[in-house]
């Protein structure tokens, strides 16, 4: 998977999106992140691993505490992709507007 696919894959899950949302407020320990979810820690760690592999988060172990934080660059990558698709269709619709309005003018000139 390329990075963008990995990002979308990682974001394609409620638990992982909730983790991302929580990390938006600042770094947190795995224990703290896992708390709201009714699942065993090993299952939760799989979600953390997917997020980490996608490059959306990093984690660091100090003593017995693993702390997770967001990585900003890959969010920007996904955001850019969305933006590019939006730009493509917005400008295409603008050009269509120009085209049909020109066709109208030509029609009027012909009729007149």
């Amino acid at each position, binding site marked *: *998977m*390329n990075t*963008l*696919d990995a990002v*979308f*894959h990682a*974001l*394609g*899950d*409620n638990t992982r*999106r909730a983790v*991302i*949302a929580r990390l*938006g407020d600042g770094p947190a320990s795995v224990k703290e992140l896992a708390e709201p979810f009714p699942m065993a820690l090993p299952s939760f760690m799989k979600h953390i691993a997917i997020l980490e592999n996608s490059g959306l988060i990093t984690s660091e172990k100090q003593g017995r505490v693993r702390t997770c934080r*967001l990585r*900003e660059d890959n*969010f*920007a990558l*996904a*955001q850019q992709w*969305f933006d590019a*698709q*939006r730009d493509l*269709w*917005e*400008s*295409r*619709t*603008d*050009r*269509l*507007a*120009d*085209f*049909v*309005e020109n*066709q*109208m003018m030509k*029609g009027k000139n012909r009729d007149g």
Partner: protein
Amino acid sequence: MDEKLDIEISRVLKAPRDIVWQAWRDPANLVQWWAPKPVVTESIKHEFYSGGGFGTLMRMEDGSEFASEGCFLQVVENEKIIFSDALSGGWRPNASPFMTAIISLEDHPEGTAYSAQVLHNSEEARQRHLDMGFFDGWGTVFEQLDSFVQQLKN
């Protein structure tokens, strides 16, 4: 269809629906607005009916070319055009699906209310995304990315 899942572009076009329809129906018209200049669009296939093939070739200034082939899933005169590159003409599955576009036309006092809804997919992980409910999360992802990027800017 859930609006949260899509990129949606809406405009009021100051021309009646049949003029807008012609801009889509006739490939000679389509190539004039499909891609930005100096990209030259060539229409390879334009079977403008439900199940017909839809193909464009976009030629960049440096000579590189980008071809895309799709299928018109639904064509309802003066009302609706749905096409996807998940399929090619005759509903034959394509190798690398990417998007479905839903174009709608409605009467408006100033002309035509035009909207393009675009559902995207990432190529390689598409089935997994569907299985995992990726599209259910689209709106949420958008909001989170937006707010996250806003935070970065502040």
